């Protein structure tokens, strides 16, 4: 693979890992499966292809088939698409292939003639699922960082304030720290979470100047759920 296929300005993490080959490529595949498996399953559930099988099996089949292709990620980079869109397009082709293969063998009764319109669309459902998946992944990364740095208490304060909505004053009573200290502890973890989430969006293909816009777009999608 040529070194110019992944310019340093974009997709740095994925580009570098793929360029390493072997273990690097495995790390990329692992990242893709962790972050995008669930959004693709949600997408699949929203389509008329649900008769093809269990969402988890179908998505695993897609990953096994496509992620092994040598040019999969360099083709994505050339496309200029967000990685989730690239995966969704690839998944559609994969479903189409499965459909043709299964129609030859499936009994007619298994194949739906028509499916009622779905609202929201599978694409919208996938975007919502993607938003939840990357928040989840960023929280896991922030948690792991806190754990390795001995900041378990900070993590709890962050979670109770930003996730459960406890005020700093209430936290002070529950955790035995001052409200001011609780605010700093939450802030410390929030910085780690923010960094992780923005890095995950960069891996999805957003350039440094596009990340805030991408976040606003995901906020728009999830807030209208």
């Amino acid at each position, binding site marked *: 693979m040529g070194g110019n296929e992944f310019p340093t300005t974009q997709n740095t993490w994925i580009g570098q890992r793929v360029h390493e080959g072997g273990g690097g490529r495995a790390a990329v595949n692992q990242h893709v499966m962790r972050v995008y498996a669930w959004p693709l399953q949600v997408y699949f*559930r929203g389509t008329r292809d649900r008769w093809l099988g269990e969402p988890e099996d179908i998505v695993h089949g897609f990953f096994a088939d496509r992620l092994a292709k040598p040019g999969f990620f360099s083709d994505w980079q050339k496309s200029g698409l967000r990685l989730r869109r690239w995966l969704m397009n690839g998944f559609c082709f994969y479903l189409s292939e499965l459909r043709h293969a299964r129609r030859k063998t499936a009994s007619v009764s298994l194949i739906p003639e028509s499916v009622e319109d779905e609202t*929201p669309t599978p694409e919208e*459902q996938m975007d919502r699922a993607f938003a939840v*998946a990357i*928040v989840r992944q960023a*929280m*896991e990364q922030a948690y792991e960082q806190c754990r390795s740095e001995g900041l378990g208490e900070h993590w709890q304060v962050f979670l109770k304030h*930003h996730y459960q909505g406890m005020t700093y004053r209430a936290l002070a009573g529950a955790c035995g720290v001052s409200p001011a200290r609780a605010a700093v502890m939450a802030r410390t973890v929030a910085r780690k979470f923010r960094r992780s989430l923005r890095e995950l969006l960069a891996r999805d293909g957003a350039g440094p100047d596009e990340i805030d816009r991408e976040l606003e777009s995901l*906020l728009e999608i999830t807030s209208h759920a």
Partner: protein
Amino acid sequence: MPEEQHPPHGDRKKPSLPEDALPELTEADATRMLSLAISGPLRPVDDLIERLSRPDGAKWLSRVLSAGPTAAFGAAREQIADGKASLEQLRAIKQTSKSLLQNSKDPQSRLTAMVSYFFPVAAALTHYDESICSRPREELETVLLDLAAVTDEPWSSMFSTAALSGEDAQG
């Protein structure tokens, strides 16, 4: 809606996090958490926050505090952190920092000027419950909490106390 809308929770057979560490996320949770990651326009103070958050941030700060306008009335720790400087002295340090900032020609002097601005501002709030700058309260609180998160003691406590001074600590 999909048949099953449960968000992912790591590997279902072997959760990657303890239950009390990270509960399941709904879309409403994700919305709230996403908004945390929006950085907004870059503020000048972000350069200072970035500098302080580097591994040698504490040493760098110590050097700046002992040589910059913050040392005008004595050791910064005693004057600013412990509250020995009067309100007028804190105002004077802040004023010096403003002209330093206007005349600064390199990143290092801009950073020094920002230290000399925000440290007395925080000290005035902490020790005198007095705001000596005209920044909106909400904006100032955010900056002070950011500074508290990247400084060691006694500065971290001074900034966090300043950030929540005069408030009911709701946020």
